[in-house]
């Protein structure tokens, strides 16, 4: 068997590839922290990624402006999150069912409009990428770092964060102190939608187009990363990096002589080992997934 070229693993290109792969995990994952800290499970993130990617592609294609494309993608994310909020917070429907329904909905509607707008149900026309911004660095990478810092401070240092955590842990207690639990929860879910929509925008720019089903389960993996990260934005980010590293590793060594199947297995093996061995018991917010019913 051929020896693994270790210097290749650690080179800059590999690192950058890892980071690029990490971005579409990290954004929805940090978003999920906001949603679940407040007590709402948001598996619609998968659909939001997809819809975000689609609307970014459409926006960029018609305006020719990358920034406006991003605005479209984020808006789509917020819109779907808003629907999820109405269903689960106002009408107290089951959060998983609503999430699955929205994912299927996103899958269908993106395909539908893709066909109408680009005359192909599988992919959009080519769009401009982030390179048109002419920046000397990757703006999304910087954005991720800023978002991560702001998220951490927001959740653990601000009034809003304290109330959000209380709403997800013991909504009755929060309510007894005059906090509007449902409004706080809406805010958490909307933030998750915006961040996942941004993640979708990145996907579209990476491929310079939208392709059918391009979120490819990243929303779910982002949720897993959030759990591995114990509902902490920094922990979630670290878990996303791990997934990014594993996937990047897979790409790097596809042609290295090691059986491909074995290489492709690695990310999943890694996940299981990390979940079972190093993380220990993860305690979700106590009222996560439970609609808040005000007593009267």
């Amino acid at each position: 068997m051929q020896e693994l070229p270790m210097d290749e693993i650690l080179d800059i290109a590999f690192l950058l590839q890892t980071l690029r792969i990490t971005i579409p995990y990290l954004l929805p994952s940090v978003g999920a922290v906001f949603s679940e800290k407040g007590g709402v499970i948001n598996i619609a993130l998968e659909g939001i990624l997809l819809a975000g990617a689609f609307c970014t592609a459409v926006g960029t294609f018609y305006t020719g402006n990358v920034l406006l494309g991003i605005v479209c993608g984020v808006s789509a994310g917020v819109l779907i999150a808003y629907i999820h909020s109405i269903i689960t917070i106002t009408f107290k429907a089951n959060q998983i069912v609503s999430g699955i329904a929205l994912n299927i909905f996103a899958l269908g509607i993106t395909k539908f409009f893709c066909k109408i707008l680009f005359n192909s149900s599988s992919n959009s026309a080519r769009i401009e990428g982030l390179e048109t911004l002419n920046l000397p660095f990757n703006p999304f990478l910087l954005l991720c770092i800023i978002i991560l810092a702001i998220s951490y401070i927001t959740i653990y240092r601000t009034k809003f964060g304290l109330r959000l955590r209380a709403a997800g842990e013991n909504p009755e207690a929060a309510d007894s102190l005059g906090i509007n639990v449902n409004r706080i929860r809406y805010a958490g879910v909307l933030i998750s939608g915006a961040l996942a929509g941004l993640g979708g925008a990145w996907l579209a720019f990476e491929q310079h187009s939208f392709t059918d089903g391009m979120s490819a389960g990243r929303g779910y993996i982002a949720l897993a990363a959030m759990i591995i990260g114990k509902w902490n934005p920094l922990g979630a980010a670290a878990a996303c990096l791990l997934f990014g590293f594993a996937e990047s590793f897979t790409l790097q060594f596809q042609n290295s002589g090691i059986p491909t199947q074995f290489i492709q297995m690695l990310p999943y093996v890694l996940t299981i080992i990390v979940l079972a061995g190093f993380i220990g018991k993860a305690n979700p917010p106590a009222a996560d997934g439970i609609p808040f019913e005000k007593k009267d």
Partner: protein
Amino acid sequence: MDNYAVEMTGITKIFGEGFKANDNVNLRVKRGDIHALVGENGAGKSTLMNILYGMYRPDSGYIKINSAEKTFHSPSEAISGGIGMVHQHFMLVETLSVLENIILGDEPAGFAGIIDYNTCRKRIKELAFVFRIDIDLDAKVGSLPVGIQQKIEILKILYRNAEILILDEPTAVLTPRETEGLFKTLKELRSEGKTIILISHKMSEVLSISDRITVLRRGKVTGDLHTADTGKSELGRLIVGEEIADLSVKVKTPFEDTILEVKNVSIKNDRKFLAIEDISFLVQSGEILGIAGVEGNGQTELIEALSGIREIDSGTVLLNGKRLQQNDVIAHIPADRHKHGIVKEYPLYMNILLGRESESGFSTPYHLKQKELINYTDNLIKEFDIRPADHGQLMGGLSGGNQQKAVAARELTKDTDLIIASHPTRGLDIKAAKFVHEALLSERRKGKAVVLVSTDLSELLMLSDRIAVMYNGTITGMFKAVQTDENEIGMYMTGMMAKDSKK
């Protein structure tokens, strides 16, 4: 100007189809008093306080705070009106720190909503100093004992500048020492001019701490008393509406067979730590062994092991001289009846069947004997005075006292020599509690062995023959009930004293 902090006049509150929870109630509380509001469960105490606190609107009547008429539409309005309430079930977020819990909902914040922790920490420290409450502000609330959690609740309302504090059954969950600590704090609050309304149904406590007492029965005021001018018997009569006879006298039973023998038993808790370490004791026929202790010192694990839902790590448990088996029949009145005792969605007679479904009286190998079961249930309803007397009534529709009677009826009529009762009267009113006590004593007279776990020391002293005190997973003391008192047991409960408990 008169000096009433709270005046509630002519308060009537009707629920559902004409049930009057409060019927023309008048309550006057003097500023700077500790005013007790007493009565049985369902007498309307909590309804009245919830009206004062803005959770309910009265159907008639009005409220004056410091002589000014006020209407509160929500607890937040009541809070800004200077009224704070400590609920029976604490409203705390366990994963947050003490400090975060206190400021939650009223956070001083600066730029971008970032909380100014220094300011609020200073303010809370001042409050804690004035009222002599000593708490580590950075501890996670979930890790603290209930006595401390209660003080956090009190600090929470003081932080919101409350002048009037309502405490709903504050001692229900406390040990004697914690209760003492609470009363000290309440006196401290009174001396600083705060007004306190104390909801309780423990007469001795009310008599020892309050200045005035208002008694409610079935929604009406039956007494408005100066504490100094009244006593237990008058208060008891006003609460219940009739004299309560003393419990049947305990006599030494003639039995002496050993029913339960626990030898060098150790038990692990859910986190795989030893919850019970090498304990041994005997329970004889016709004996009630009381187990005292602050909650969380291994009682739960011990009871779970004895009733077969938790494995024993080492040691032996013998029932009638034979090793205790999983399928041995034991009567078990669980601590949390909602979780382990009943199915609320089932009718009463199905609840009577729970755990007894394979008894030949109730089933053949192929089907349930519905008719026999219903007859049996009807007999139990009579014998145990379960109300409403309807075997088809859904369990969730029964009052707590009647649910507990139903659990007792099912368990105590099982064919077994061993009864395990865990907090059997928690949350029950005086009459229902007395009924359960009588039922246990009657089983004892029949020669059964009873293990009784309770945090209510007066209950333990009244019923038990011997009392074992548990602290930190071991038995720190074993006493004859007639030779000890609450103070002595309290010392052992908190680990301040321990004696060799072998045998």
